[in-house]
Each structure stands twice: as structure tokens, then as C-alpha cells.
């Protein structure tokens, strides 16, 4: 009987001690905000285009954290879906809707001689990438443009084009080696040509 009482007392006091520790740490080490939202947000392409149905990338990140599908980001394409699936340990889905898996990156271009200076595109641009003033010609800061094409619709004179980003020497990248075709795969090691001996 005595041992039982001792055991109960010991367990009870342990429970109190651990409860206090947990309670203290819950206050002391409390994480403000939802860290997963930040992680998701950092994976999204930040075009702020709203094609996912949310007013910006962060709202979409928040709703992904609340269980929305991860395949609603056309600018991010399949790569974003994969990285999101990897982060959240979810199944990799196909991109929602009829978008290209790997969309061509574009950038807005204002045909400046047609611009009437209405500032509508400036208001529409989510990243302040359009420069101009009322009744003055506007232009796009190419380096800041995310290619969200939100500026195209408000333009009353349709002078904004979405141009694909041209490949230059600076952004050129090595292509992956071509995958061998069926015929080539049937080649066996002995078919390999002998290396030409140059040393004479």
C-alpha cells in the first residue's frame, strides 16, 4: 500500500514538473506566425499574378498551408509543384488547368509611342515595375518585371505586349545531353568504335 502511494506521489509530482516545463517553454519559445507559410512563400515564384485565384503569392501560400491544392501556380510550373510537394510531403500533381508545364518566361513591353500615359498599368503592377507619370510615357523596368501580365488588361490602348525573355550569352544555359533513343539503346559494348591512336 505504501509503495503504491509513493509511486502515485512520484508520478504526480513528475507530471506537475513536466507540465510546468512544457507550459513555460510554450510561452518562452512560442513561434509567432506560421513558419510553414514562409517556407511555401519562398518556393512560389512571386509573380503576384493572381492566376491561382489569390491576390498574390503569400495569400496562396497561406491557403496551401490550410490545405489547398499545390498545383495552381502556372508561372511556377511543374518545378514549383514538385518543390512544394517535396516540402509538404504531398503527392506531385499535374498543373491545374490548361497551362504549359514549363511556361515561357515573358516580360511586359510597352510600345512607348502608343502609350497615352493613363497610369492604369502602373496601378495594376504588383511589383512597381512600371515607371511613368500621368500623361507621360510609361516604361517597364525589365529586371523588375515578373511577367504576371496583370498590366495588359487595364491598358486602354493595348500597347503592352508580353515578350518572351530572349536568351543572351549571359542567361544562356547548357542543354542537357539528349536522351538516347531506342535504337541506340540496343547498341552493345562491342559495337563501340576503337579510339583512333594519334600517337605514332
Amino acid at each position, binding site marked *: 500500500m505504501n509503495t503504491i502511494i509513493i509511486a502515485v506521489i512520484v508520478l504526480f509530482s513528475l507530471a506537475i514538473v513536466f507540465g510546468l516545463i512544457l507550459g513555460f517553454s510554450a510561452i518562452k519559445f512560442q513561434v509567432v506566425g506560421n513558419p510553414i507559410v514562409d517556407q511555401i512563400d519562398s518556393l512560389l515564384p512571386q*509573380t503576384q499574378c493572381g492566376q491561382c485565384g489569390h491576390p498574390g503569392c503569400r495569400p496562396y501560400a497561406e491557403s496551401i498551408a490550410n490545405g489547398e491544392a499545390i498545383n495552381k501556380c502556372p508561372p511556377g510550373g511543374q518545378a514549383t509543384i514538385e518543390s512544394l510537394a517535396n516540402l509538404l510531403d504531398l503527392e506531385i500533381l499535374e498543373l491545374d488547368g490548361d497551362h504549359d508545364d514549363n511556361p515561357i518566361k515573358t516580360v511586359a513591353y510597352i510600345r512607348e509611342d502608343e502609350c497615352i500615359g493613363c497610369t492604369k498599368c502602373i496601378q495594376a503592377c504588383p511589383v512597381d*515595375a512600371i515607371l511613368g507619370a500621368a500623361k507621360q510615357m510609361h516604361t517597364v523596368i525589365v529586371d523588375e518585371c515578373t511577367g504576371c501580365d496583370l498590366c495588359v488588361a487595364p491598358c486602354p490602348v493595348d500597347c503592352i505586349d508580353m515578350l518572351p525573355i530572349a536568351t543572351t550569352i549571359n542567361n544562356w544555359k547548357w542543354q*542537357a545531353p539528349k536522351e538516347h533513343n531506342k535504337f541506340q539503346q540496343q547498341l552493345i*559494348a562491342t559495337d563501340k568504335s576503337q579510339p583512333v591512336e594519334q600517337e605514332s
Partner: protein
Amino acid sequence: MGKVFAFHGGIHPPENKHQSTQLPIAKAPLSKVLHIPLQQHIGVAAKACVEVGDKVLKGQCIGDAQGHLSVPIHASSSGTVCAIGEHPVPHPSGMSGLCISIETDGEDRWIEHGALENFRALSELELIDYIRDRGIAGMGGAGFPTALKLQLGDKHIINTLVINAAECEPYITADDLLMRERSTQIVGGIDVLQHLIKPSHVIIGIEDNKPQAFRALKAAIKDCAYNIDVISVPTKYPSGGEKQLIQLLTNVEVPNGGIPADVGIVCQNVGTVYAIYRAVSKGESLISRIVTVTGGGVNKPQNYETLIGTPVSTLLQAAGEIQDRVSKLIIGGPMMGYSITSIEIPLVKTTNCIVAASVNEMPVADPAQACIRCGLCEQVCPAQLLPQQLHWFAKSQEYIKAQQHNLFDCIECGACSYVCPSNIPLVQYYRHAKTSIREEQQEKRKSDLARERFEAKHKREQRAIDEKAAKRKARAEQAAISQAAKKLSENNPSSPVVDDEQQLKNQLNAAKLKLQQAQDHLTKLASSHGSQVSDSALAERQVQHAKSNLAQIEKAVDDFKPQLASAIVDVKKLKIGAALANTKLNKAQQALKKAIEKSQPGVEQLQKTITMLDQEASNASKLYQKALRKNTQAETDTTEVAETKRLKIAVAIALSKLKKAQVQFANEEYSDAASATLFELTKQLEKAEQPLAALQKATAENANSATNKNSVQPPLKTRARATETASPDLKVLKTAAAIARTKLKKAQDQLQTLAPEDQHNSSAVQNLLSEIKSLEEKVRLSQASYVKAKETSDFEPSVIESASVRRTHYNKILALHTKAMAALAKAEADNSPAVTKMRISIDKLSGKLKAATAALSSDSIPTSNKDFT
């Protein structure tokens, strides 16, 4: 002779160096046009500082360095700038880059230049800037700005200077020939570097397949005062790699992601050292370099001292190109170089070799097979990586894992690809993975920037909204304050009630004054005629009575004032409510319209809410109209008060008549008959005052009921009744009072005429008496009519009430009907499905309307009759 260490891996590909070492360095022919790319180095491209058409001299700066990580470019020969634009440049992509094209004039005239008199006299920084201004960038292959590499000495303590003379890549012999022929100049360059860096040890690392160069250098360093060694390293690819050579010579491994300076070593290519010598001792900018032209596709493979910007075609011609045999043109060596398609590509500072390879030399690569996990690649990797693993990760685009396996430590030497039995283009995979990762990083940076900008914009917009809201709030408060002030000012001076009150007060004061006078006179009379005391007391009582009446009027006025004000406020509120309800209704109707257009499911609900809102709106407007009516009643109250005033005036006049009569009485020398007349007159006045008192009582009642009216409906009705009854009474009494007044006047006149003639004419007095009697009769009559009117008004109210109720009912129905009709028209225009329902309800309404009209018309006849009675 220093000790030689070893690095991991490495291969021994066929060297093929002897073809191009048979002939000495030749001067390449001057090309007609030189295309000088603005970017020939790692970092930021230079910016053209000449314009098309400008005459330039050899060695003239034509492109300024942009920032720290950049070097200027110079004209390689004299001539005219013929174009500044895109031109194919030596790049694995085969794409174009910005070039300055110079049409040479053949004079090859140098710009004025001279050697540094004594480079040792210059400060370190000045010397480094000088080197930089001569456009010197690493000539081993990467093209890193040399000045930047030398500046590192500030942050790091450099104890060893390594001169890279290994030249491990097959085919290339440019450095070999340079060392053979110009070893003293190279040592001259080393002098400059030694002065700049001040290392404790200078090591020249040279592969043992270049014995002639080794001997030449050995001879050249004999006179050197500092610690310098030429060390022969075993021939093994890629011993010419910076990190590999450092390990070979010093057994120090450059840390992952670090630079040689981190371990106290600076490594410079032998070609760069030669360029530094030329710059310092001759003042020449980097405008030429030694290029090996070799391969089975040329007749005389040879090294050429070539001007920067010379097209490949010029060199190939000089070397005797056999076009049929050239299957592939390679810039750089066969291991790390890349093939080019255009022969117009110019040579740049980093181009050390052109291989015009025949088919035998560079056969088409066999198709890649599957990896058999033989592990040969791992054995040859000089960077001690796991090429096989990297291959898998690169292939499946698992870049994070590839980075974890140190992909970026790969020097892309191609040893793994060379040994791969399955012919897997491993390096190509790594290059792809590297560029993809870099692209991702770039995008990440861009997206971070975009996020930052987006958040900044969002914050800015939020701030603007908040500011607007605050402003609006402040404005609303201001408006409310000014509104209240306005209301207050409206109520005070311009209120009709207050005006009336003022008038009433004035009259009251006047009446009081008159009363006072009458009282004074009476006291006088009382003192002079003791016998008339009783009469005077009577007059005094009358005056008292009039006083109390006045007090009553005052009270009524006081009671009436706040009620009227509250009524006005109430009406305003109701008006606002009605307007609100109407706007709500309009909005709901618009929403319904939209919903119908879009055929949304919530249409029925919307319709319900609309009917609800409709009712609300009609109720509100009804209330408002009622309130308005109340207000008009309140106005009639004011008129009532005015009537009271008039009566009051009449009373005052009567009082003055009394006074006059009293004066006459005094003049009549105690005539009994006259005194009797006076008595009668006073009585008559008293009687005349009675209806006034009754009226005042009624007014007081009205005021009392009016105070209750706002909260409850029934008091309003009683009040209305009282008002209705009061107005005919007032008329009757008014006429009665007027008649009494005229009669009194006549009696007075008669008395006056009697006074001078014969005061003792009893017959005249008799006549007067009889007249006064008839007067009395008339007053009585007027009183009776008053009583009668009161009685009728007691009975009539129910009729009036019902009539007014019917009228309001009729109005209500009429309003509803018109509204319903409008709604129907709208619904019909929108093709709403609710049209039929609406029609039915409208039919019902019109029935009700008809009934109401009938009721109203039947009412109107007795009502109008009553008005005339």
C-alpha cells in the same frame, strides 16, 4: 629543386603537342576587320568609349571597365571603328555578343606609349591600377581580371606565388613556345609580380613534356635575386588546373569554395605574366596573344602571335587550312574546349588554341550507354568527387542533392567523360546542372526582390487607405459638429415658435401694463368715490381674472415650444430613414437584376429581401408623411396660438373700453343709471372673457396632448380632434367678440352723446339699458354657439378621425400601387420569372385602391359639410 606531390585522379590522353611545336611563333597576318568583343573576361562587360567612324590607334582604349570586376579593352590595330554591335563571339552557345569592329588601315600605328620608368617606385595600388588599365585578364582560360587577383594580397598573407606553366591540355603549345622563346620576358613579368605580392617563394610549375621550355626558364631565373624555382611536374591531365597544380607543388589543398589566396598562394598563368611584362616594360596593353593553330585540318600547325579580334578564318588561312579535312573547329583544347560553327568568330584574350580537327582526330561520339557503375570516373576525378552520383542527380534534376555532393567543385576537366566506358557525356550533365542551379538561384533572387517590392507596395497602399479613412472620419466628425451647430442656430432665432413666443410676450407685457393702469385708475376711483367700492372691487376681480388668463396663455406657449422642436427633429430622422430604405431597395433591385442576368440560384431569396425592403421603404415613407402631417398640425397649433393672441387683443381692447367707460362714469356725476350701465358693461366684459378662458383651456389641453403625441399614436388622434374642434370655435367666438365689441362701441357713443345734452334724460338711459341688454343677449348667444360648437366637435371627431385614417390608407395603397407598377415594369424589362406573381399582387392592390377611393369620396361630402357648419 622542390619536391613534387600528387593530386587525386587524372588521365593521360594523347598529347598531340608535337605538331605545333615544330615551328617558332609566327606573327599572324593583319586581318582586314577586327571584331573586339566588349566582354572577354569574367565579370562585367566593358562599355564602348568610341563611336562608329572614330579613328583609333593601336593600343588605344576603346572600352572602359565597368566597376571592380571588369577590365578595359583596347584597339588591337590602327583603323576606323566600322561597327559597334552584335557579332558572333567565342562562346559555347555560339551566340553573338557586343563587339567593336575596327576596319584596319594596315599601318598598325601605335598610340603613344612608354614603359614604366621604374615600376618599383610606384605604390602597389598604382601598379595594380596600371595593370588593370592595360586590360590584363587571366590568359589561362577563365579570364579573371588579373588586377583583382593581385589586390587580394591586402586581405591575405601570400607566401607562395605559383606560375602556371603546366599546359596539360592536349594539342595546346602556346605557353610552351612562349617559354621557349621569351623566357627572359616571363621572368621580367615575375619580377613585377614578386614586387607586388612579395611572396617568400616563387614556383614555376611546368610539365615534364616541355623540356626545352624548362631549360629556357632555368636559364632565365639564374640572375633572380629572390627565391624562385622551376619545378617539373609529371605529365598528367589536368595538372594545369589551378588547384591541382597548387597541390602538386605545395601539397596544399584549396578549400571547398575558397580561393588559393585563402591558403596563402596566388597562381598566375605564364601567358598573363608575359602580358604584365609587356605592359610594364613597354607600356603595351593586352592586344595580342599567342594562339596555337593545330589539328589535322591545317597544313602547318603553328603558334601565332595574334591580335585580339582577329577572326578564326584569318588564322586558319595562315596555317593552311584544308577545308575538306576539317570536321570540327574547336576553340580551346579537346578536353575543355567547345566547338564553333562560324569561322568569323574573333580571337579573344582567353583563346589559346584553335583545333581544326579531322574526322579521325575527333570522331563523332558514340551513343551513350547506360551507366554500368564501373567507378572509373571516380578514380580519375581530380576534384575527388563522385561523378557517377552527380550524374544521377543531374539527370533526374535533383539539384539539391547534386549540390550536396559538391557539384560546384567540379572543374569540368572532362576526365570522367574521357574514361567512361559507356560514353556518357558526364561533363555535359554537370554543366547543364550547374547552369540550371545558377538560373534557379537567379530566379530566387528575382522572386525575393519581387516579394520585397510587392510587400512594399502593399504596405504603401494600406497606408494610403488608412490615411484616407482617417481623413474621412475627421471630415465626418467636422460635418456632424457643424450640422449640430447649424441646427442649434436654426432653432434659436428663426423658429416660428420662438417668434410667436416673442410676440406673445410683448403682448403680455402690454396687457400687464394696461392692467396696471386699470388697477391704478380703480384705486383712484376707490379713494374718490367710497360708495363705488364694491364696483371697484368687482373690476379688480375682473382684472385678476384677466391676469390669470394671461398666465395660462404663457404656460401654453412654454409647453408648446419644446414639443414643436422635437417634432421637427423627428421628421428629419424619419426622412433620412426613408431615404436609406429607398437606397437599400434600389441596391437590392440592382442586385436582383444582375442575378437574373446571370441566372444565379439566389434570385428567389433576393426577391424576398426586395419585397421586405419595399415594405420597409413604404413604411418609412409613411412614417415620414405622418410626421409631416403632424408638423403641419403643429403649425396649425401655432395659428391657434395666434388666434388666442387676437382674442387677447380683443380682451385688452375691451379693458380699455372699460377704462373709458369708467372715465365717463366719473364724468356723469354719480349717475345711478350710468353706474348701473357700467356695472352691466363690466358684467358683459366678464361674460366675453369667459369663452376666451374656455378657449385658453382648450389650447392648454392641446399643448398637453401634443407633448404625448410623439411617442404614442392615440394622443395624436385626440390632439387632432381637439385641433379640429378648436378651429370652428375660434371663428365663431371671434365673430362674437367682434359683435360684442361693436355693440359696446355703439353703447359708448350713445353715452357720450347723452353726457353733454341731458344727463337726467331717463328715457335715453332706458334706451341705453335696453340696448345693453340686447348686447348681453348677443354675448349669451355667442356663448351658446360656442357650447354648441364644442358639443359638435365632441361628436364629430370619430368621423374626422376615420376620414383621416381612410385618407392615409388611400395614400398608402396609392404609393404601394405606383411602386409595384414601377417594379413590374422593371421586372418585365428584365424578363424576370416573378412577373406573373407581381401582376397578381398588383391586381389585388388596385382592388384595394378602388375601395379606398370609394371610402374617401363618401367621406369627403360630410367632411366638407362639417367644415361649413
